[in-house]
């Protein structure tokens, strides 16, 4: 059993190159400052933080969309800075983005799922088989012949996941994938990601600013101004609300209620973070 991490981030620093039009100099605050992180195969990890905390930047280092100015990132042992490793790494680590529309390229659902496979020149029987099985796992088989503009937001994100899943990756990164969706669709996607994590052993890295989504993770990494400021299981992170408030994150009301009740002596397990779990704890 291989215990080396799937993604190994070692002391990376990164600054977005911005060009000041007037003076011609490149200046900006670093988006990541000396960040180190190890992601194990099969983990469900949440990168938590408000807009601008650096979480998306960190996520994009995991599939070579960005390469660090200092330090290095190893994906399954391959250095992301090496151009020759790019394709192999992107096959292993897939990513879905915030805008459901701007990831779909084909005119028909099943063509889009197959797209990444056609680019690699795989034979048609293999493509058909993969596409059918992936659409099944994601639950969009009944939409196969539709054009993308007839799909709802949640369905489009599922299509995006299918397109990435077709490459049989080891890890999927969801970069604020639920930010533009309505609550129903958001649930759909989070449930799907958890399902893929449990049933297929896929590593999932979810980048979000919503604490209710973070509550379901195995591990939470909280970021602020380019640094990792908190790390741990949801139970440990949610035990103290004040640091979370300082990170400008909105505390879900049930969780706040549970914490305040715990502080006045009610015995509520720190693991209870969902509405159902808290309700169970409150009923004697």
């Amino acid at each position, binding site marked *: 059993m291989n215990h080396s991490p799937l993604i190994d981030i070692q002391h990376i620093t990164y600054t977005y190159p911005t060009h000041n039009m007037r003076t011609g100099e490149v200046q900006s605050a670093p988006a990541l400052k000396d960040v180190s992180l190890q992601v194990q195969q099969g983990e469900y990890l949440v990168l938590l933080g408000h807009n601008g905390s650096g979480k998306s930047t960190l996520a994009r280092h995991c599939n070579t*969309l960005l390469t660090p100015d200092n330090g290095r990132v190893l994906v399954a042992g391959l250095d992301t800075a090496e151009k020759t490793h790019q394709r192999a790494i992107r096959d292993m680590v897939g990513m879905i*983005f915030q805008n459901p529309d701007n990831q779909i*390229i*084909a*005119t028909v659902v099943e063509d889009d799922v197959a797209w990444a496979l056609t*680019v690699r020149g795989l034979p048609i029987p293999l493509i058909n088989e993969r596409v059918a099985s992936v659409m099944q796992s994601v639950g969009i088989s009944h939409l196969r012949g539709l*054009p*993308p*503009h007839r799909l709802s937001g949640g369905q489009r994100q599922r299509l995006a996941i299918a397109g990435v899943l077709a*490459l049989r990756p080891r890890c999927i990164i969801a970069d604020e994938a639920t930010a533009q969706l309505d609550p129903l669709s958001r649930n759909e996607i989070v449930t799907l990601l958890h399902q893929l994590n449990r049933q297929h052993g896929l590593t999932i890295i979810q980048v979000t600013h919503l604490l209710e989504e973070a509550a379901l993770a195995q591990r939470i990494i909280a970021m602020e101004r380019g640094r990792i400021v908190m790390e741990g299981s949801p139970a440990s992170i949610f035990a103290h609300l004040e640091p979370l408030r300082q990170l400008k994150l909105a505390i879900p009301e049930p969780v706040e209620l549970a914490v305040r009740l715990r502080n006045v002596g009610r015995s509520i397990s720190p693991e209870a973070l969902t509405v159902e779990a808290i309700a169970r704890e409150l009923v004697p």
Partner: protein
Amino acid sequence: MFKNIALGIYHPGNSLLHRLQARTKLLVLLYLTIYFIIANRRVWHFAPYIVSVLLLLTAISLSAISFYYLWRRMRLLVLLAFLGALPIVFFPDPSDTILHTFGPLLFTYAQIHWIIYACTFLFAIFILLPFLPIPALRSFRQHRLLRLIGILLMLLTLIAIGILWFTRNNPLTSTIPVGPLVVSYQSVWILMTFFTVFLVIYAFSLLLTMTTTPIALIEGTTMLLTPLRWLKLPVDDFALMTLIALRFIPTLVDEAEQLVKAQIARGADFSHGTIRERLQSLAALFIPFIQGTLRRASDLATALEARGYEVDGKQTRLHEKSFSLADYLVMSLVALVTIGALFL
């Protein structure tokens, strides 16, 4: 209308024509175009044209599309083409052999004057009719056809007045010759062949787009243009661009509609106000739209990069498979029949 642009005028079906590869159909079309150029060299040789029309009829019957439907789509353009081509008949080359001459018609100026008076009278009636108290005539002016006639009559009257003015000095009994209209063998031949070629090629291309999905067409075209890739031309990129355009047009239409509503809600007005104000309202549409499209393009590029897009050239075609027996049969049949006709 724009939302279905990805389907174009494709009619789903399972006929023989639907089952042929896009490449076959494209090649046949291309072949026929060149064929007609060759066939035109032998004058008064009808065989190639008859054969091509027969091929067309066979093709229509082998596709799932009814003759009537096809005719309905074609009729306007065909009519226009015919009317436009007709004058060819009347202006032959001096060296051609004459078929018939429509002798010069002689009009006296008196006759012309009478015609002009009649036109003016009709036009006056036309103008005055709505002012009569009969209610049925009120909506007279609104009817589209009658408005058209009205405009025509007005033009005629103006021309008539012009003619009257320029010929006011000519004595009433002198004559104007109209014509002679000379029809030659060659010009009739040209008219017939032009018309047949137009009909056949247009019908075949309509059949092509009706029995082939746009994606298959793009893939087929890309495959046929493979030789150009050796000349370092970006054939695959063009295919991808067309595909992306087809994919995004409905989405962009939605976005544009939304933007129009948002700017109207802010007070933008495209039909009232000074030119400057209207231009500003248009800018309120175009600039955000282009901005949004550029942002989309950037997002899409990132997403495709993350999915491993590379310009390799060995892309699997999802819709164009290899040639089947039917394709070979059709291509050879067409070639045989048409070349045979050349020698008849």
